[in-house]
């Protein structure tokens, strides 16, 4: 019966407490992906619903956060495919950096502009590792690839970001002349 999907509270069931604990980071990931608070709300809600419905498919030894992130990411990719929401500007990024010194602000902006030039998969990987602090093993779980693959992709992503940052600096220098 349909009720069994969300009614039982067995020991292996995901508790509200553990989901609640993940919520801020899940939301932050959703906000980063969607750049829009309302869309982030929708993404998180849809992901938790999905997690509750399909909790029996989770590997018992797997990282809960990695599993939730992977559901949210897939959800985001699906939404994007259908609604073409991805063109939204980086409003949230800009808001995030109100107070710091001009120098830091300029640097951060340059870095972010460079970051935005990277392919989406590379950006997601860098965000998960550098901003969220997800463990390498959890990222590997999330995308269901071996740890070695994640490490080499991370090297490529970091190299690409560096190249893009160098490109940005050159552009800035030219403008200032």
């Amino acid at each position, binding site marked *: 019966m349909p009720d069994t999907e969300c009614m039982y509270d067995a020991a292996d069931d995901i508790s509200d407490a553990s989901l609640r604990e993940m919520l801020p980071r899940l939301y932050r990931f959703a906000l980063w992906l969607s750049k829009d608070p309302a869309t982030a709300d929708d993404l998180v809600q849809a992901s938790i619903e999905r997690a509750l419905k399909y909790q029996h498919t989770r590997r018992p030894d797997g990282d809960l956060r990695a599993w939730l992130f992977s559901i949210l990411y897939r959800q985001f990719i699906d939404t994007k495919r259908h609604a073409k929401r991805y063109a939204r500007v980086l409003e949230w990024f800009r808001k995030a950096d109100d107070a710091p010194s001009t120098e830091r602000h300029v640097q951060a902006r340059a870095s972010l502009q460079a970051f935005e030039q990277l392919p989406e998969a590379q950006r997601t990987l860098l*965000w998960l590792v550098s901003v969220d602090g997800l463990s390498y093993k959890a990222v590997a779980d999330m995308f269901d690839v071996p740890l070695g693959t994640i490490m080499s992709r991370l090297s490529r992503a970091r190299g690409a970001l560096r190249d893009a940052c160098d490109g940005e600096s050159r552009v800035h220098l030219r403008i200032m002349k």
Partner: protein
Amino acid sequence: MNEDIHIDDVMRHAYVDGRLNAEQQKTMSQYLAAHPQEARELDAWRKDAAQLQAAWQSAGPPLNPALDPAAIRMRLKERTDMRWKLAASVLVALCIGGLSGWQLRPVPTAQLGLAVRPLPMQDAIAAYRVFAGNPALRADALATETDLQQWVAAHFSNAQRLPDLTAKGFLPIFARMLVTEEGPAAVVIYKNDAGQQTGFYIRPPGPGNKLLAEGQRQDGQLLTRYWSDRGYNYALVGSNSTVINGAG
């Protein structure tokens, strides 16, 4: 000596992300001292990572309370229940629509009198069985909230009044609209103190304007009385004692 140190990608990235323990950090420092070019590259990566982090340091908007897992769990359950009820009511409508349509199918002249004659108001019995037997199904009107007599009058103009079964201890409890091929129908379920039920059913006679001569039919434990009046067909379905002389 440092040439012998083997550093893999995990170590490199853990250095960039500040995830090395003291011993690993020491090993890494020795290695980088011997490889200045790589040291410059890893430090640049480190700076990039720190800048990304800095851009995301602020707390962000407060979380929407609707995202609390308990709230989501509850909404999910409500939706699942609602979907199940909706599916059940669609099935009911299909069954009843199908039955009433079958009654009206044209019968070839040669077979008249020989063919199995459709039973009148079979849809009333189907509706009664479904709604009297499934308390979980949603009602369109409840006696506790709506005057069911007025509700019927509002949907079926000039129809007979609801049968008064108070003498037999039955009161109307809830009503439900249904779709049939003859037009909108309704079933009103009555109950007595003992929890026994009786159903009153009303629908238009349909395009064939097939009004019924008064009659009754036993179907297992259920007795159905049917009649027509004021442009509608009616049926009363329930136990023998309730239905006989109950209305009409």
